């Protein structure tokens, strides 16, 4: 029985606010929302942050202490693009296994996409997810679908979904094909102050494709999906957002053109935000040389020039969020010839380490920017109060060890999905502690 990364998910007897008084000492506290970055003590009582100071008051007397020497103490991380597969494909992942994977990855909250079976396109389906996730080791915020059944024809009832707990709408997995429907969706979303999250893909341009259209697809003899298929719809959705004054969030940006479009739109004051994924940060279509189906996803891995533009976009603030697009699959769907393999890779348990290895160590992002893009901004975009260590806020905290060195072994994952593009990679950094409402729900021992 493989010890999962030397880490352990700890289920407190009742997952609510922890009664324990917790002191986190000697850590570097990074809280950009409060412009904090320095050696500080964090104190937690009744599941709420009550102390953030250079010294501990004598009467604090904690029952539990965590020595965070050499580590970063940050607001609980949030992954706003996760596929939990439940309801419908519990063989691929359940809310239980998905939230455990998130917790082990250092996330205290996640937002899950509605392309389940049935689709989360009405109140009862949203409620189902909320209820199933109630005692999880990670907070789950459902995203409702834009259109009923993801069919792109009729709008889902945004109001009742929001009332049931949805924080945004998206037809992720596909674009809303008809521009007039998208325009209606954007207009309607304004009443609920929720963002419309866009999966941008012109399906006519990508039809039959399995990887990025480029020199690599020519070399491998695989039909390609051109970068313009994404850009054409990014442009459309930005312009519709601009016209309607609605808020739009571009999911999984993967091309240089998309980054440029978002950058220009922001300059013009369009209410657009966007996210990219760790695999676009670390990999390119060159990494498909061996037809590895664990590197097949949609949007696909792009060229070096696209990757460089993504890094630029992260560094200059064009890209607001890093989210994993965690998409677990069963092995039967991946252990086949490339053309027949399902699209999607898991990411919850490698996301943080990939960002540490490829962005922090390479000084493309500052630690405070990591916290912004993986905690503060996702919370803000979804209208949530998390992402800060302000006094009085819920004690959702992640303690990051930037010096950890470990090798990715998918057999150790909490996720049911083993389809990682980073198998065998030596990564730097991990979450040592994941703390939810003041409860330590995950602890990772050892060098790794």
């Amino acid at each position: 029985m493989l010890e999962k990364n030397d880490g352990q998910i700890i289920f407190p007897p009742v997952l609510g606010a922890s009664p324990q008084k917790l002191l986190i000492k000697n850590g570097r506290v990074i809280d950009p929302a409060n412009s904090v970055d320095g050696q500080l003590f964090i104190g937690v009582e009744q599941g709420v942050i009550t102390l953030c100071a250079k010294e501990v008051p004598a009467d604090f007397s904690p029952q539990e202490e965590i020595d965070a020497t050499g580590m970063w103490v940050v607001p609980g991380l949030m992954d706003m693009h996760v596929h939990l597969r439940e309801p419908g494909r519990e063989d691929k992942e359940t809310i239980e296994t998905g939230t455990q994977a998130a917790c082990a990855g250092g996330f205290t909250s996640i937002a899950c996409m509605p392309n389940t079976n049935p689709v989360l396109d009405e109140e009862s389906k949203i409620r189902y997810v909320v209820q199933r996730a109630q005692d999880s080791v990670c907070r789950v915020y459902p995203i409702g679908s834009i259109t009923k059944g993801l069919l792109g024809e009729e709008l889902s009832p945004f109001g009742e979904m929001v009332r049931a707990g949805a924080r945004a709408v998206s037809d992720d997995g596909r674009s809303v094909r008809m521009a007039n429907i998208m325009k209606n969706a954007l207009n309607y979303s304004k009443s609920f102050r929720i963002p419309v999250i866009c999966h941008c893909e012109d399906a006519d341009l990508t039809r039959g494709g399995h990887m990025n259209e480029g020199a690599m697809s020519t070399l491998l003899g695989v039909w390609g999906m051109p970068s313009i298929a994404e850009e054409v719809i990014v442009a459309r959705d930005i312009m519709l957002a601009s016209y309607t004054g609605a808020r739009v969030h571009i999911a999984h940006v993967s091309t240089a053109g998309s980054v440029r479009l978002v950058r220009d739109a922001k300059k013009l004051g369009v209410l657009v935000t966007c996210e990219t994924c760790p695999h676009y940060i670390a990999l390119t279509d060159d990494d498909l040389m061996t037809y590895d189906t664990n590197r097949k996803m949609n949007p696909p891995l792009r060229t070096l020039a696209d990757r460089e533009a993504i890094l630029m976009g992260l560094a200059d603030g064009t890209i607001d969020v890093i989210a994993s697009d965690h998409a677990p699959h069963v092995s039967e769907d991946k252990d086949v010839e490339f053309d027949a393999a399902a699209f999607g890779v898991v990411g919850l348990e490698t996301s943080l380490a990939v960002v540490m290895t490829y962005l922090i160590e390479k000084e493309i992002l500052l630690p405070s920017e990591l916290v912004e893009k993986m905690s503060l901004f996702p919370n803000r975009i979804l209208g949530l109060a998390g992402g800060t260590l302000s006094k009085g806020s819920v004690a959702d905290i992640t303690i990051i060890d930037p010096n950890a060195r470990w090798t990715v072994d998918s057999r150790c994952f909490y996720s049911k999905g083993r389809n990682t593009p980073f198998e065998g990679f030596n990564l730097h950094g991990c979450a040592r502690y994941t703390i939810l409402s003041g409860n330590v729900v995950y602890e990772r021992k050892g060098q790794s």
Partner: protein
Amino acid sequence: MPLTIKHLLGLKGVSEQDITLILDNADNFYEVLQREIKQVPTLKGITVVNLFFENSTRTRISFELAEKRLSASPLNFSTSTSSVSKGESLRDTMRNIEAMKIDMVVVRHAAAGVPAFLTQCTGATIINAGDGLHEHPTQAILDMMTIRQKLGRLKGLKVAIIGDILHSRVARSNAWGMTTMGMKVVLCGPPTLMPQHPSPLGVEVTDSIDKALAGADVVMMLRLQLERQGSGLFPSIREYRERYGLDLEKLSRLTKKVLVMHPGPINRGIELASNVADGDHSVILDQVTNGVAVRMAVLYLLGGGGENA
């Protein structure tokens, strides 16, 4: 010097020495095909599976003939649909076949990368008979054998490959293999039937048939798949024929006497006029004969062997 490759998955990256070795052996297998008894006992007891997931009569028959002429035991496994829709995974299909104790697999599949995938599923020797839009190495080798047979050499010759390059694995294997052998290859076709990013092919690309034919020693015509007409890749067969079809009129404008080749099957009157296909420029039937010789050489060189590394 023996062959350095263990499988034949494609011609990209295969050395000049290995290609020459196959060609030299193929020439001598050609002699076997001229004998009265066109069979040698060399591969007796070796089982070869012809795993054809894509419909193909001529290539499969060519391989089967090569196997029989070498006294190997061929096993034919054909299915016209992908294994996935039949419910059995490719890996399981391969495992089941291997349980019957086979030595070599000749595989054709609509998905690129399948031959490489099979090398991970089985210990048998894998020969690629065409994978998706990727490679068709034995076709390119028989094309080169035919050219060498007729013109006495390969180095320095100019070959124009004309037609639907985008969907042609034959064009790609030839581009890579012929460049390795020191030949100059030009790919020609309408921009809609050319890969958007042709640089990995490493050869000149043009949409002008006159430019492609200028100075050519060999002209290889590719089949236009008529089913593609509705897909918007070219406006009409008439326009395609006019701009990219080969007929006596276009041939007569050339100063050299060129060899005319075609991997088959031919759409007579579309990419190739009948009188050219049947005329004295054409070596199309030689290609077919040489195909058996080349496949015999490949089976012979890759098969058998105790410690074949």
